[in-house]
């Protein structure tokens, strides 16, 4: 292994493990937070960042090719689409009359 491939491997491991870390935090948020809006807050932001990190890691591993360009395209698409989907669900929940959680309430 020469020096360049070792540096590339270090970056791949850093970004992919970072993606797995943010996936884990968003899952913990989805399981532990008290109500719908806070859970959506955890998954909406955490998953977007985690997908971005994982795709950058896999893209660096793949290198400059058509496949790497397509992975970049997926990253751009997810960066546009995921916040929009989160916004749509949260607005539908608000229209349906879900109340945000207050500090005095019990966990539901």
């Amino acid at each position, binding site marked *: 292994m020469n020096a360049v491939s070792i540096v590339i491997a270090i970056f791949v491991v850093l970004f992919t493990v970072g993606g797995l870390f943010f996936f884990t935090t968003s899952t913990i948020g989805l399981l532990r937070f008290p109500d719908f809006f806070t859970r959506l807050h955890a998954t909406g932001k955490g998953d977007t960042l985690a997908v971005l990190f994982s795709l950058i890691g896999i893209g660096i591993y793949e290198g400059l090719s058509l496949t790497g360009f397509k992975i970049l395209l997926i990253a751009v698409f997810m960066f546009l689409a995921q916040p929009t989907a989160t*916004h749509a669900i949260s*607005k539908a929940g608000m229209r349906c009359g879900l109340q945000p959680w207050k500090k005095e309430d019990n966990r539901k």
Partner: protein
Amino acid sequence: MIRKTDDIIIRTVARILVPFIQIYALYVIMHGHYSPGGGFQGGVILGASIILLLITHGLVETTKKISERAIAIFSSIGVFIYAGIGVLCLLLYGNFLDYSKLSVILNVTPAEARSMGILGVEIGVSFTVMAIMISIFISISTTEDHSKYDKEHY
């Protein structure tokens, strides 16, 4: 009846994304022999892009772009292309959908004629799948004659 969304974020993002989704669908149709995909899958993506337009911009605004009459015509054209290529092969003394016989008309070798023939069939399949998906979505989301609703709120 499908209302249009009153949310400007969803409408703007859908308007930005729809052309790129359609270009990707054309890529899936054209590269059907080398990569996963083909006529059916590309047609589904094309139909999904129009369905995205339907659920964000409403029925009235979308049927201005592609009317229900045009959808019916598209579904017939797809079947016509598929069956037409098959019958053309029959007329050239081959089996049904035997593309290598098309080399007489296209003036190429039989191997290239097979590649072009299957591309034509995939284009026909994608037309039909796209039109049928849109028409199923419109049929299950509207129950009555929707021409009598007022155009302002829908």
